Structures are given as structure tokens and as C-alpha cells.
């Protein structure tokens, strides 16, 4: 390029227009796609209200029509490549909306059905001696918090240590076996984890044992592999150069792990742990088996039945009492509380990863 420019000096006026002609290509004004969209929506509305088509059909036809219009117009004005780009954008948007639909409608259901149930009494009372109206989730809320906290307390150290071992120390047979076992654990159905915890506690406490701690053990079985996996992934992302930089300063390996590797990966690890907690907090089956179901408050995880939110939802739905409306409403209220807890945990995870991750900007 430069050599041709140098050898045959073209008159400046002649070269420039040619060059700019290649750089500039016709482009649709920004309002055009929006106008097309508005037109399609209008057609859809007309089909629905005036022609009498069904709502879903009208929406689909309008959306497909929008795509056809946009691609045709773009192809005429902007050329094939831009038209393909518009088509791809349309496809991605469609996929996005389809993916979001179930989530949106789920949230809508939970909020609209659950909100009427929520009040101070609902959060502050148990189900003791309640048959019809009234009652609440106090016992179940505390049960869920206690059981999940205990599960986290057991899973985080074990999972973290295993992840560190696998990435920093593990090579050879031992590590391969651990990885294999963790993979197997990831696939364990939650009800099997519950049965395992039950069988384990029967050994010590005899048949028919029920206690919150057993639920925590069952949840740990489900949570440990999640923590191991996320820790492993995050530690693998830490560049080896940082470890080498630390070694080269005469820092022993264990200090390097604690002071260089973990701080670099901590945001991702904590995010992974939080998401693991959010994953197990909604487990029902194992808790139904080992924690049991009760109407009363129990703060002692080592003694007797302990209610949890998922089990509460299940039992209220299954035995709503007489008349049944109140039980169903309580189930939705508890579902809303559980959803809020899970979403809060996810939000916390995002905040943590935002504040703890290594900053490159001032």
C-alpha cells in the first residue's frame, strides 16, 4: 500500500474521493428501525382488535413482520452485510426475550400471589394452633436460616480446602480421584442426599431421627461440590506469573497461596459460594426427610423437627387446612419470601464481586 503510494504519486483530489467512497457506505437513519417496529406493532394491534386474531398469533406475526421489513429495507439501502447483521441482532433479541419470559412470568406469579399474604403477623408467628386464617412463617424462616447457615459453615471450609488442594497441590492419582468423586457428588439427586443424611443419623440416634443438623449435613453434601468447582475455576484463572512473582521474592508456597492467589481470586470464590448457598436454600426433598415438618418454633438444630421454608410451602400446599384459601395464600407468601432471599443472595454476590475484584482503574 505504502509502496504504491510512494512510487506513483496520484493527484491528491483524485485519490481522496475514491478512498472515502470505500469508507462511507449508506446507512439507515437511526429512527428507521424504530419506525418499522412501531408500524409492525400497529399492524399487530389492528390484527388483534379489528380482525380478531388471537393475542399470541398477532404478537408473533407482528414480530416476524418486523424482521422481514427490517431485513428487506436494510438490504436495499445498506447492503447484504448490514442486513445480515440486522437479522442476527433480531435473532439474538428474540432468544433473549424468550429466555426472559419464563423468569418474568414466574416473578409476576410469585409477587402477585404472595404479596397479599405478607404482613408483620405472617413474618412473626408460627403455625402453632392455627387451622384457618392467620399463622405465619416465623418458625420456617428461622429453620431455613439455621439449617442453611450450618450447611454453609461445613461446606465452605471443606470445599475451599479441596479446591485449593486440587489447583495448587494436586497432581497425579489422588487429585484425579478427588475430581472424579466431586463430579459424582455434583450429580447426586437431592433426595438421595437426604436419605444419606437420614441413614447416617439413624446410626447414632436410632430410627425416626429428625433434626435440623441432619438437614444441614444433607445440604452440605449438595453444596460441597459446588464450592469445590467454583473455587477450582477461580483459582485456575489466577495467572501463574503472579505465583512466580511471589516465589521469586522468596515467599513460601503456602504464604503465596494465602496472600497472593486467594486475594486475587477471592471475589469469584465468594460469588461462587453465595450462589451455591442460593442453590441449596430452596432444597425441599432432603429436608422433608431429615428435618421433618412441624408447626412450632425450634431454635435447636440438634433436637427434634425443624421447619424450613421449602417444606413449609410444600406442606401448606398439600394440607392447606379448612378453608383451603388461607393455606394456599401462606404457601405463596412463603414462596415470595424464599425468592426474595435467593435474589438478595445473588445481588450480594454481584456486589461482592464488584467490590472485591482487583481494580485496574483508579
Amino acid at each position, binding site marked *: 500500500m505504502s509502496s504504491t503510494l510512494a512510487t506513483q504519486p496520484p493527484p491528491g483530489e483524485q485519490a481522496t474521493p475514491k478512498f472515502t467512497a470505500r469508507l462511507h457506505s449508506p446507512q439507515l437513519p437511526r429512527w428507521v428501525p424504530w419506525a418499522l417496529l412501531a408500524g409492525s406493532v400497529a399492524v399487530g394491534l389492528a390484527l388483534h382488535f379489528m380482525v380478531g386474531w388471537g393475542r399470541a398469533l398477532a404478537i408473533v406475526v407482528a414480530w416476524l413482520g418486523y424482521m422481514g421489513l427490517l431485513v428487506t429495507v436494510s438490504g436495499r439501502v445498506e447492503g447484504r452485510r448490514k442486513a445480515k447483521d440486522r437479522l442476527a441482532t433480531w435473532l439474538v433479541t428474540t432468544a433473549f426475550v424468550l429466555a426472559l419470559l419464563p423468569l418474568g412470568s414466574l416473578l409476576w406469579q410469585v409477587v402477585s400471589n404472595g404479596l397479599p399474604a405478607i404482613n408483620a403477623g405472617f413474618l412473626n408467628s408460627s403455625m402453632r394452633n392455627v387451622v384457618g386464617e392467620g399463622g405465619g412463617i416465623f418458625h420456617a424462616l428461622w429453620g431455613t436460616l439455621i439449617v442453611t447457615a450450618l450447611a454453609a459453615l461445613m461446606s465452605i471450609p471443606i470445599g475451599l480446602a479441596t479446591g485449593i488442594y486440587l489447583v495448587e497441590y494436586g*497432581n497425579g492419582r489422588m487429585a484425579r480421584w478427588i475430581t472424579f468423586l466431586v463430579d459424582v457428588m455434583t450429580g447426586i439427586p437431592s433426595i438421595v442426599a437426604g436419605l444419606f443424611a437420614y441413614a447416617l443419623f439413624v446410626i447414632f440416634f436410632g430410627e425416626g431421627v429428625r433434626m435440623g443438623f441432619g438437614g444441614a449435613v444433607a445440604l452440605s453434601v449438595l453444596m460441597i461440590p459446588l464450592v469445590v468447582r467454583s473455587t477450582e475455576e477461580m483459582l485456575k484463572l489466577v*495467572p501463574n*506469573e*503472579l*505465583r*512466580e*512473582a*511471589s*516465589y*521469586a*521474592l*522468596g*515467599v*513460601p508456597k503456602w*504464604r*503465596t497461596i494465602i*496472600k*497472593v492467589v486467594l*486475594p*486475587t481470586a477471592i471475589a469469584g470464590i465468594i460469588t461462587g459460594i453465595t450462589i451455591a448457598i442460593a442453590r441449596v436454600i430452596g432444597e425441599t426433598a432432603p429436608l422433608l426427610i431429615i428435618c421433618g415438618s412441624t408447626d412450632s418454633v425450634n431454635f435447636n438444630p440438634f433436637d427434634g423437627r425443624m421447619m424450613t421454608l421449602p417444606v413449609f410451602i410444600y406442606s401448606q400446599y398439600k394440607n392447606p387446612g379448612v378453608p383451603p384459601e388461607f393455606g394456599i395464600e401462606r404457601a405463596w407468601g412463603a414462596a415470595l419470601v424464599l425468592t426474595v432471599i435467593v435474589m438478595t443472595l445473588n445481588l450480594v454476590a454481584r456486589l461482592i464481586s464488584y467490590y472485591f475484584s*482487583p*481494580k*485496574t*482503574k*483508579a
Partner: protein
Amino acid sequence: MAKSIDVSDLNIFYGDFCAVEDVTIPIAARSVTAFIGPSGCGKSTFLRSLNRMHEVIPGARVEGKILIDGADLYDPEVDPVEVRRQIGMVFQRPNPFPTMSIAENVIAGMRLNSRKLKKAEAAEIVEGSLRRANLWTEVKDRLDKPGSSLSGGQQQRLCIARAIAVQPQVLLMDEPCSALDPISTTAIEDLIHELKEDYTIVIVTHNMQQAARVSATTAFFNLAGVGRPGQLIEYGPTTKIFTTPENESTEAYISGRFG
């Protein structure tokens, strides 16, 4: 206090692949030794074997002998951590700690080893090391900003400051100026001149003029062929290597006829 290094019959492996073969070279204390040679001939590999950083890579190992002031570096009794405290290293690619500020990066050698530092003492080390690495004026107003917020060349100088802050007796520098402008390069070369009064310095460089300027001894490495191990072709006083080298390939490399 500076240490001399004696390498004899050293072979360096990555798994089964022999990267460097049969190196024998004495490295004098309180002087600068430069390694030159084409890319991939094993300069970095050899340099890393001098402070036992090579073995950090899985499957990597060495055969042969390296004596540091007469003591065998690869004796099973020798603690690699202790070795690296005395033989510092500046890597080919800058690697500041992203979780630490600029100041923390400089004193990382002490902090990571939990050595207690008084505040004034730490500030003194930070300023002194950064000044010697010619970075102080650029960062003195933002010492608490993350080390990774610096430009590539600034990061390289930060890593140099970090390496000299712990006052190693031997300093291994792998292309420390490859990302630096002429002004900073001059500053680093001045630093090398200053350091060689007390320390032993080994520097890898692709810049012939730099090798000629800073080093007393130059060693030329070359590849026997593609896929073959790198070899030490010859070493000697820098002036001799650059004027009347014994080996033809050295002459060719230095005069720029290949490599």
C-alpha cells in the same frame, strides 16, 4: 556479600524436552554478565535455573551442577525459598500483583513474608526503590493506586523496584528494558552500574548495545537447530566477544547477519 556462581555441565529439561544443553560458565561476583542469543535458545530457561525458579514448572528439572559461592544450589538440603530470597529476579513479562497498590507492590517482598516494617521505614524503602527504578516522579502522587493501573513500561520498572527492595545478593534480569523508552533504559542501566558495586547481576538482553554498555562478561547462546537444545556457544570479556569472537556464529549474530 555478593555471590559468584559456577555452572558446570548443566542440562535443563521441560519434561522430556531438553531445552538447554551442557552449559559451563563461571559468573563473577560484583560484575554484570549479559546473555545474548536468538529467541528460543534458552536464555530465560537458563536464567531461571539459577534461582531455582525453573522447577516451579511441572515436569521441569535440571541435571548438572551450579555452585553458589562453592555451595551446591541443587543440594537436596538447600531450601529453594531461601535461595530466592538471596537471588532476586525480574521477569521477562511484568507481573505486578493486581490486588496490591503501587507502594504495596514495592514492599511485597517484606509484606508477603510478614516482616514487620515501621511506617517510616516502609515509606523510605518505597521511595528509594522507586527512585532507583526511575519510576518515583511518575507515581509519587498515586502510590495507593493499583499496580496494574500502570503502563507496560511502568509496570516493568515497578517490578524492578520490587526486586531490588529486598536487596538480593544476586539479581537476575530477563530483558528488563524490552518495554522501556531510551530515557528509562538509561536509568535502568545506571541502576545496574550502581548495583554491581555490591551485587552480582545477570541480564538477558536482545539489545547488543546494551550488552556492550553494561556488562563485563558476555555469553552467547544459540540453537543447534530447530527442536534441538540451546547451547552456550562462547563467553568471555564483553569487549572481546564484540570485537574478536572466537566462534563464527557469534560473529554473525553480533554483526546482525542472522538471528
